[in-house]
């Protein structure tokens, strides 16, 4: 099968996936202290419903969704609530979080029962997903129940599953597709039982052909009600970016400023579907996730299932500590992930990887030599260098003529700039200024 891809732009980045791609997922025992930030999704922070010194069990709701654009948060261990105050957060810097001390009894909350489901309505499924605290596990942490409720005036015919894993280093989705194929397909069956899709397309970069085969063989063996197909994609970053993935798989182009609904698509990450399967079949809320702990500093890079709230320092300990002193610490992939100040941060629902890098990049900004690499590689077809020029001159509004707000922040412009200009930083500045000016008027 010929691999599909998007155009224009994109490029293959040395992926370093060999470090972990053949390592089966290991279960990591939770540590003594766990932190549950109230913001683990895009939208309104959840509301804590436990108090200091409360006893909690695994799967117990400790923070409730506040409104529709929010989700529940559950304890991933049994133990005692030590405190609720501001703690380090991997995205926000600091955020309100519930600190739970593990009693190592691993007692499950009695409320968790296998739900007795025969048929589900769209509303019921959305309710289960929101109550189970499921958000997009690729990194964006967008509440999943919102994505599964298309407006009534649009016809959605394609479920696009993101198994591209185009970020270098990360291999957790790869391992999930290989080891938990059945759970992913089950998640697909559940979702397509409430939304009548014509087809389900699973996009996987062709450096993971074993995953493509595993899925397609599984689908052939087990009859599914909906047409499911895993499709190889060229290994080209950012193949897993929502709009680019839709274009690669369906040929449809999401118009500027619109959602995938516009072209009849819903996009979900493979790990999210696995979580949906768990929630619906077993009633298990989101209490753990698979992530890749890797980088040149870690003694034993691994793919591990980690309880949410686990502190980074515990993950480091589980992976045998460091062989080299890390200089840079990334949550997520190296292209779009976020640097961490310390090892005191907890694993969140969207933490797909933890990367420890010993090498720092040269950040001395030179002058633009107009080589055109930023234009050539931009997956949105933008002209990043112009946005940089205008932003340097504080002509923010003019950057709109160059569609600065269409930028998906994949980072290829900065990655490729031979003069080490932080192109994306300038675009971010222009974007936030444009949005600020829009709000003003």
């Amino acid at each position: 099968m010929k691999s599909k891809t998007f155009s224009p732009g994109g490029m293959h980045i040395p992926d370093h996936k060999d470090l972990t791609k053949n390592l089966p997922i290991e279960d990591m025992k939770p540590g003594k202290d766990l932190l549950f930030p109230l913001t683990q999704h895009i939208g309104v922070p959840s509301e804590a419903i436990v108090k200091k010194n409360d006893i909690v069990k695994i799967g117990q709701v400790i923070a409730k969704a506040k409104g529709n654009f929010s989700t529940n948060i559950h304890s991933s261990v049994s133990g005692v609530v030590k405190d609720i105050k501001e703690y380090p957060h991997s995205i926000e810097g600091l955020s309100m979080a519930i600190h739970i001390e593990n009693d190592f009894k691993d007692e499950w909350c009695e409320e968790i029962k296998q739900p007795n489901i025969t048929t589900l309505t769209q509303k019921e499924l959305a309710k289960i997903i929101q109550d189970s605290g499921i958000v997009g596990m690729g990194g964006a942490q967008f509440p999943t129940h919102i994505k599964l409720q298309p407006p009534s005036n649009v016809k959605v015919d394609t479920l696009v599953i993101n198994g591209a894993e185009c970020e270098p280093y990360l291999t957790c989705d790869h391992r999930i597709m290989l080891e938990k194929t059945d759970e992913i397909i089950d998640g697909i069956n559940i979702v397509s039982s409430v939304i009548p899709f014509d087809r389900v397309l699973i996009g996987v970069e062709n450096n993971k052909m074993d995953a493509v085969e595993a899925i397609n063989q599984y689908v052939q063996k087990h009859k599914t009600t909906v047409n499911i197909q895993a499709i190889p994609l060229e290994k080209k970053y950012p193949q897993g970016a929502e709009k680019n993935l839709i274009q690669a798989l369906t040929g449809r182009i999401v118009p500027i400023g619109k959602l995938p609904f516009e072209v009849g698509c819903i996009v979900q990450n493979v790990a999210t579907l696995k979580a949906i399967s768990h929630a619906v079949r077993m009633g298990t809320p989101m209490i753990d996730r698979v992530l890749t702990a890797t980088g040149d500093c870690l003694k034993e890079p691994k793919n591990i299932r980690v309880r949410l709230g686990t502190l980074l320092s515990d993950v480091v300990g589980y992976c045998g500590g460091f062989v080299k002193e890390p200089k840079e610490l990334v949550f997520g992939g190296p292209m779009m992930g976020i640097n961490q100040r310390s090892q005191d941060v907890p694993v969140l629902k969207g933490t797909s990887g933890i990367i420890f890098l010993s090498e720092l990049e040269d950040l001395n900004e030179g002058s633009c030599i107009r080589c055109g690499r930023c234009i050539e590689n931009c997956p949105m077809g933008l002209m990043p260098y112009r946005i940089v020029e205008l932003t340097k001159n504080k002509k923010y509004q003019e950057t709109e003529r160059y569609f600065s707000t269409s930028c998906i922040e994949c980072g290829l412009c900065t990655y490729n700039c031979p003069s080490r200009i932080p192109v994306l930083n300038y675009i971010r500045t222009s974007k936030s200024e444009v949005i600020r000016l829009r709000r003003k008027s």
Partner: protein
Amino acid sequence: MSRYVITASPHIRNKVNTVFLMNTVSISLLPAAMGGIFIFGWKNTLPVILVSIVSAILSEGLLQKMLKMPLTWFDGSAALTGFLLALTCPPGIPIWLPVVGTIFAIFSKQVFGGLGQNPFNPALIGRAFMVLSFPVYMTSWMKPFSMVTSSTPLALYAENGGMKSVLAFFQGNVPAMYKSMFLGIRGGSIGEVFIPGLLLGLVVLLLTKTIKWQIPVSYLGTVFLLSWLFGMDPVFSILSGGVMFGAFFMATDYVTSPMLPKNQLIYGFGCGLLNVLIRVFANMPEGTTFAILLMNVVTPILDRKIKKPVGYIVDGAK
């Protein structure tokens, strides 16, 4: 707890940086340069090249110091300018001439704000300055493998009445003419004569993705077709003078050529058109230098085009 570096994403970079790119171009010039050194003798060529490179680097450092700009004289760009300029000089010119040329070339770049800001290709500006100020030195050519001065095939063409006099020089033997033109057994600048070396350099530039194919192809294609229309031998046209050298190494300069591939095709076409027009109608045998410099002026206009992004909808279709 130890503290770690905090930067915005992305956290990794492509290894290709400005120094790497500049040095790649310099390396891809080596085959052509070595051809020239072999053909005209090292005594007539090597000093010109070395003096030119050193003087370009020194003038860059000095000017940056004087203008209180950040010192970037070792980023490879000044060295490249010096190398390029030397290769466009006739062999055996007085050694002070490339010094003057490179000082002017670097000056033309720094007054506009340094690398990336210069409207004109520095090496070509330097050469234009030398041709206009010291025309006698810049048009005294050497016969290959000897110390005797001679004429270039293009000068024969321009001064003595067309192809006939060129062919007479080769005793009417067309394949022999092509062969010696291709191998660089002719009068000309140090770097422009050895065509296999230039082609090898082009291959290096394309394979390393240092340049795109658009400018060289549309430039040479236009020269080929237009000279044919004007009744010149098209193969002779692209082999003679500095067309190939210009199309591969001068017109493809990042700073002074357009950024969008479509505009690069237009730019290459413009270079080719002006080059042929100068050869046919103007008072000088060769037109590469001024054709490219004139198209440098057009680059900012071409670069004003705004590319439509993915998912762009025409107003009203919403």
